[in-house]
């Protein structure tokens, strides 16, 4: 039995809002694969960018509280966070608690004040949804369960920035064969290939989408996203697969904005990797939330996956 067959699930705020399709498809995928997700009780914000930019130690505390609940109240050893921002922040909190006495002091003080057990570094392991599927099911296990092969579907895998950066908070990556690479991540490529997809050579897998500036400097974000989308199309992709709700929303919204403001129309579709895997396993488009995306992919899904 894989240690990831039962994990604490930390959806985070984006998956309750703009990224709801990711939430829906992640849970549906877990159920279809026989994996147990137990949502972290009374979870709070991970600190995201707003808290982190003002008081980084408070962000460390907020993330530590999520891990403390998973470990001490629910008895889990693993927290799975599909959102790159949450995943990144929990990993950062873990790193800071292991290396910075000041962070430990703040977490201990605030935890005591809030009346819950203090989280100590190393008590739980934080993983991404990609780690979860890759380790608990693996490529062979996934391939054996495929009902609607993604064969013939050309995919550009876009990982975004926070899945691999900064490298020092991801000590399990870059550990040779079988581990994830921070320079050229491949877990999403591996899983989608196992479901039959044809991954295209795509040079902007981890390139900045300008996500943090999507409101304050929309034109910069639109230009960055448009370049990513056009690169994917030039690489032959019909779909950009995503694994981050911020990236996903940015790609979808700026694709629309690029057409409206710059007159540049692009055709590539944007789907979460969990949606693609769910469809490959025989789940319906509705079960994986295709209807919740901004990018209307139904025609492509019918033609290339449900055929």
């Amino acid at each position: 039995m894989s240690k990831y067959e039962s994990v604490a699930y930390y959806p985070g705020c984006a998956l309750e809002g703009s990224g709801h399709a990711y939430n829906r498809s992640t849970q549906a995928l877990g159920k279809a694969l026989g994996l147990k997700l137990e949502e972290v009780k009374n979870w709070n914000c991970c600190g995201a960018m707003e808290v982190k930019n003002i008081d980084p130690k408070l962000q460390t505390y907020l993330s530590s509280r999520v891990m403390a609940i998973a470990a001490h109240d629910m008895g889990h050893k693993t927290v799975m966070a599909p959102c790159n921002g949450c995943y990144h922040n929990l990993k950062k909190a873990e790193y800071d608690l292991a290396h910075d006495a000041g962070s430990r002091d703040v977490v201990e003080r605030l935890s005591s004040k809030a009346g819950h057990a203090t989280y100590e570094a190393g008590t739980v392991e934080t993983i991404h949804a990609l780690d979860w599927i890759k380790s608990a099911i693996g490529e062979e296990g996934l391939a054996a369960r495929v009902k609607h092969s993604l064969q013939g579907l050309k995919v550009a895998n876009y990982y975004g920035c926070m899945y691999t950066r900064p490298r020092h908070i991801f000590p399990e990556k870059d550990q040779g064969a079988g581990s994830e690479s921070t320079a050229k991540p491949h877990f999403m490529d591996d899983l989608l290939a196992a479901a039959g997809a044809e991954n295209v050579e795509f040079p902007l897998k981890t390139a900045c989408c300008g996500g943090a500036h999507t409101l304050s400097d929309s034109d910069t974000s639109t230009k960055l996203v448009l370049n990513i989308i056009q690169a994917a199309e030039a690489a032959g992709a019909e779909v950009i697969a995503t694994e981050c709700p911020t990236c996903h929303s940015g790609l979808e919204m700026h694709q629309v904005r690029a057409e409206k403001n710059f007159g540049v129309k692009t055709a590539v579709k944007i789907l979460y990797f969990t949606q693609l895997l769910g469809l490959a396993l025989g789940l319906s488009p509705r079960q994986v939330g295709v209807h919740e995306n901004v990018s209307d992919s139904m025609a492509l899904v019918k033609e290339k996956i449900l055929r």
Partner: protein
Amino acid sequence: MTTLAELGAAVEAPDLDAAAMLALGEAVLEAWHAAHERTPTAEQREGFRLLALHRQGAKTEPSFNACRETCRELAWHYNLLTLEPDHAEREQRLAMMRFALRHLFLFVSGKLEQAGLGDFCCASRPLRLSAKEQAESA
């Protein structure tokens, strides 16, 4: 001194070869350093001045790592194109190198106008160090 507008126009020029795109990538990073009143390094890293220039930028500004892999993709495509000049996918490789170059320009020029670009993802070091510590570690 090359302006951002001039660099942007140069990046979009037709028929750029691998060497020209690599040189433009260096020029983009030189513009970043010049804007911060630093002398761009003449050193190389892993055989590329481009990578040394990036490292020089990231040393004082961790969020600059948001373009690290873009720089590495430029170097990778330069190698592909110069080591296999007659490869069947030469045109595709040139096209992909151009997208990487354009992304580097967009990121750096965007960051010159909005200093916080990339801070969301890559700025862990300043979050743990005081301004004084940051200056000392630079």
